[in-house]
């Protein structure tokens, strides 16, 4: 696959068996199959989790983890880019952003539990959670606030998920959600102000 060669992803073992599965799952997700979406989510979740750990182990000195790179690399590994229609890719990226959010929030939750007990400290994903919390608030609080936001304005919550957890540019967020850039930017302004107020 030429993108692999080009971006030096070559050599890392793809999840055999699952790679081929993705395309089929995406077709089903596009058709509105929620079970397929669940399965896809699990696959991406695991891949992001593993990839984040790999990256953090590799670059101990550099604590900033590039989410976009992470999501995209997981994507490149899981899906054969060339074979995927935009409609399917859109779903994939949306699910990937959601999975990224879960990876981080779940880890933040576990970390909280470990602190209270006598758990291990300094696990690789801790750094990632910290890097995210630098630019937000406590991830658990943010997650809960996002749920409340989604209750009233699902699109606004999606924009945050894609932009903050997925690391996508505004133009990509708009494309993934199928709305105009202006609409996406307005939603983003509102969501930020609302969440900031909510978390204050």
């Amino acid at each position, binding site marked *: 696959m030429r993108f692999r060669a080009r971006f030096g992803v070559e050599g890392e073992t793809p999840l055999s068996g699952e790679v081929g599965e993705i395309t089929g799952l995406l077709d089903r997700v596009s058709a509105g199959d929620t079970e397929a979406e669940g399965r896809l989510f699990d696959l991406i979740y695991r891949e992001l989790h593993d990839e984040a750990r790999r990256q953090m182990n590799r670059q101990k000195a550099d604590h900033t983890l*590039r989410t976009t*790179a992470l999501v995209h*690399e997981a994507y490149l590994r899981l899906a054969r*880019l060339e074979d995927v229609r935009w409609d399917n890719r859109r779903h994939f990226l949306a699910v990937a952003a959601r999975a990224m959010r879960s990876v981080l929030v779940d880890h933040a939750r576990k970390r909280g539990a470990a602190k209270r007990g006598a758990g291990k400290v300094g696990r690789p994903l801790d750094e990632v959670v910290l890097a995210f919390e630098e*630019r937000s608030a406590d991830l658990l609080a943010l997650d809960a606030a996002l749920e409340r936001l989604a209750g*009233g*304005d699902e699109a606004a919550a999606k924009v945050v998920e894609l932009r903050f957890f997925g690391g996508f540019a505004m133009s990509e967020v708009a494309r993934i959600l199928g709305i105009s850039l202006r609409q996406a930017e307005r939603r983003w302004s*509102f969501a930020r102000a*609302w969440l900031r107020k909510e978390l204050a």
Partner: protein
Amino acid sequence: MSVQLLRRAREVFEGALATPGDGRDAFVTRECGGDDELRSEVLALLGEHAKLEEDPFLEPPRTDALSDRIRAVVETKSPGEEAEARQQRTELLEGRILEGRYRLHEVLGRGAFSSVFLARDLLSGEEVAVKLLDGLTGEELSLVRREVAILRLLRLPGVVQMLDEGVAEGIPFIVMERVLGTPFGKDVERSWERVGPTVLSLLETLSRIHWAGVLHRDLKPENVLVDEEGRPSVLDLGTATEQRVRTRLREESELTGTPLYIAPELLRGDPATVRSDLYAVGVMLYRCLAGRPPQRADGLAGLIHERLRSTPTPLGEVAPDLPERVTRVVDSLLAIHPADRPASAAEVLARLRGEEETGPRLPRLGGDDGVG
């Protein structure tokens, strides 16, 4: 907070942001009517919004170069997808009449961001070629169009004339003379006797183009059509904008073509000059006379590496039967450093004709130092 309140607050908040600063308060008061809860919610949100301008709250971290490149790939439609979409678009256009004047017949060719149709000009009754710039977007389009409008005024013998330009179905198009011929160097045996007259004629044309203050920027065999009598016609004068777009396409998407004719300095990012056009002529001549390209490399990276670092095997060694003045000129056109190449098409002409290094008199073409 109730769902209802949140929704209303968002509407008023977004409306307020779209209202110029001094009208905002009045807007919010008007929209909220007597609903004080809504009004205080919106004002609080606007207050947060103002504070957030300089705040990295929830902003994704700056991405590194790698993720930008990956993003470019993710953003780019896959080549198959792109081709399919364009195929559909062009099929829709077949048989259409553009601006009440040009009836499109079949597709003659497709480039990275354009399709060329055979068409009939219903006004003159003549066959023309219509190039639809269907692979560009937004600002790129208007820039290209503006430059094309200027190039249309250029009338030079040996250069395919642009006749008209316009927009149809939102797609800009350029109308050009229809030229029959085969790409330069095709079906030509490696003899200077056969190809020489065409080359001299091509250089005369190139000299006129440069003299007019225009660079071609995309010389390659497909853009030099040779008729049965060996007369070349140069087409597709590249606009500066088009060229930039092309480069962008090359960098971002999977490389759209082999940059076989691109001068080394352009690969490094330097601007195009007369001498980079001449380099392209050098590659065309070498390829035609030696029967193989000056550099052989696997893939693009290899080619760039070769091109920036080593000069090709001298043409005289590959094709010993050629006149020495010809092989020496071709070798000089392929110099890595632009300064080591001939300065103008006119100079190349003189040397190929065997006239010694040009004095003040350039062969019937004037000079062409006007560009580059």
